[in-house]
């Protein structure tokens, strides 16, 4: 592939949307500023020009509406891909997502389903204003009936978003905006989707398993590289599909390495990391050489951007946690 074919994560999202809309006329896109403006991050650029205003819709400013309308559309067999502009603004839509999208299949015993995707940029590190930088994936992962997917590379963004659109259930597709344009990858526009029920092992290792997702994959991979210079061999797993969780891949790795550090940007307590640690405790307790550690955001409100560097897990913090883990046993 030539340099021209290499695209960023946000371009991969755009490419997947183009592909999905061209293959299935039931796919529609809606949200604030998604049509004429192409999305504030340009994720939906070109869709309106190509697929028309009937399928690519600028909505009034109302997140509860966007979620509710998507549910209505989905109930009739459309496949809405809604954009919520920032995760910090999704909460008005929460009632619709929790009380309806997540439950429709179950409460009608499968008669009505919600094949919808809610795309939403999240996470810190782009010097954004207040409420534009939070990581609250745990809120959605906690809800039975919702799927939560977080890509961390252009290829996974493309493949996972295609799967998400095809999937018959409601999916919160969270896009780590700090790495929207961090790297480029060759992403063939071949319509190949990636499975929604597996983690992705990004690096093989034998001494410690580093488990992460989203933008923190960046620091996690850096940490693994730096650890390798010191002969510590770290395996890196990108969870990617947060819910349902593929614990088997993580278990397999941890049984091999005996050590595990979970890294996430979200606040520490009651989070997705806690769930992973609990499952490891339940299923790999006797294989562990050291307690599983977490390197996370603190249990504080996401600071405004001046101080966010003190909140977002750094490579140094990850390395230090691994060192502590290696010292034990």
């Amino acid at each position: 592939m030539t340099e021209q074919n290499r695209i960023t994560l946000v371009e991969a999202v755009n490419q997947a949307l183009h592909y999905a809309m061209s293959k299935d006329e039931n796919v529609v896109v809606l949200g604030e500023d998604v049509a004429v403006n192409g999305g504030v991050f340009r994720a939906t650029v070109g869709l309106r020009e190509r697929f028309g205003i009937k399928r690519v819709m600028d909505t009034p400013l109302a997140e509860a509406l966007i979620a509710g309308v998507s549910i209505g559309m989905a109930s009739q067999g459309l496949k809405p891909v809604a954009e919520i502009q920032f995760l910090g603004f999704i909460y008005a839509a929460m009632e619709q997502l929790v009380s309806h999208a997540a439950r429709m299949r179950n409460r009608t015993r499968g008669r009505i389903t919600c094949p919808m995707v809610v795309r939403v940029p999240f996470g810190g590190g782009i010097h954004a204003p207040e409420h534009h930088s939070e990581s609250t994936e745990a809120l959605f992962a906690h809800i039975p009936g919702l799927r939560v997917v977080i890509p961390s590379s252009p290829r996974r963004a493309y493949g996972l978003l295609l799967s998400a659109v095809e999937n018959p259930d409601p999916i919160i597709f969270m896009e780590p905006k700090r790495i929207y344009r961090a790297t480029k990858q060759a992403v063939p526009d071949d319509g190949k989707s990636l499975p929604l029920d597996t983690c992705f092992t990004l690096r093989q290792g034998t001494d410690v398993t580093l488990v992460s997702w989203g933008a923190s994959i960046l620091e996690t991979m850096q940490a693994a590289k730096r650890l390798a210079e010191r002969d510590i061999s770290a395996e890196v797993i990108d969870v990617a599909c947060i819910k349902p969780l593929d614990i088997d891949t993580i278990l397999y790795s941890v049984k091999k390495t005996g050590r595990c550090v979970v890294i996430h940007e979200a606040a520490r307590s009651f989070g997705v990391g806690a769930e992973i640690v609990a499952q490891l405790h339940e299923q790999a307790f006797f294989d562990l050489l050291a307690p599983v550690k977490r390197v996370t955001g603190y249990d504080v409100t996401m600071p405004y951007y001046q101080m966010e560097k003190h909140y977002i897990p750094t490579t140094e913090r990850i390395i230090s946690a691994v060192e502590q883990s290696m010292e034990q046993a």
Partner: protein
Amino acid sequence: MKRNPACAIEYVQYLNEKGELTQPIPKWAEQSNLLLRYYREMVMARHADQKAISLQRTGKLGTYPSILGQEAINVVIGSVLNKDDVFVPYYRDHTAMVMRGMKQADVYRYWGGDERGSANPDVGKDLPYCVPIATQVSHATGVAAAIKIRGEQRAVLCTCGDGATSKGDFLEAINLAGVWQLPVVFLINNNQWAISVPRTIQCGAPTLAQKGIGAGIPALQVDGNDVIALHEIVSEALQRARLHKGATVIEAISYRLGDHTTADDATRYRTNEELRDAWQREPIKRLQHYLHQRGDWDESKEQRLQAQAADQVQQAVDEYLQTPQQSINDLFLYHYEELPAGLAEQLSEADMANQLQEKAGQRG
């Protein structure tokens, strides 16, 4: 056929875009002092605003929403509220907030990613900036309920954008204000755009003010570029509120002359013609024309004011840029009245991580 007369929406203007009176001037405006103050504050506002944009362009400020073209709304709010009234702003109210006691340096701090921008005690019980659209509107209704419950003679003024009126939060809040006859004024800054979404596809009704009618609240439109009309209408509504005569919805027709924020590029979605046209109606020029005509303003006064404004803004910038860094403690200390033990542990962890980082930085 019967017609319900309550459905007509009045539009109020005194000073048209050429700076001519379109109806007899109100008594207060016959004198010059307040109009001159409005003029000065608007010029100051524009300087402070342009400075914020250049600070952002040079990496010294984060994403910033300009108030360009909306200075009249800002300065009238800043002036007609009494000290003991409560202002519930959204995020495009910088100068109104400064006139209420915030420092211009605090405005820069907030948009410069520093929580302390909202900490200045001089603003009393005014609420801070509100970024999640329309969520502040029910707070205003709640503040008004508190005032009513205590039988006080104070009023609340709440601002929001045209886009905000599409949210349930807005409709729910004005609904209750109508039912409970609360002392609150809802001022919609209809600047014609919600980022890239034009007013016409935000709402199918001809006015946004008429949403007030659905809530049983008197509602009207006012020229949002006309300080005289704004002053008349907003102070009258506030006075009604203070006297417990109920709420008002005011739709101020303005125009967002800048990009939505410094992160936006409005050329992607609006025409140059529309923008050029809107510049004809902006608030500062028309007041200047009018004051000139009255003999209250001249070129030398203008020059002095421009220099003064530049000076004052530069002082605010200097103050902002000299703000000392927050400490790690500040991330933790303000969540609860007392720091919980577990959080205290995380605080020491964060401190250690910081030292680690600094060491790594020195090595690196």
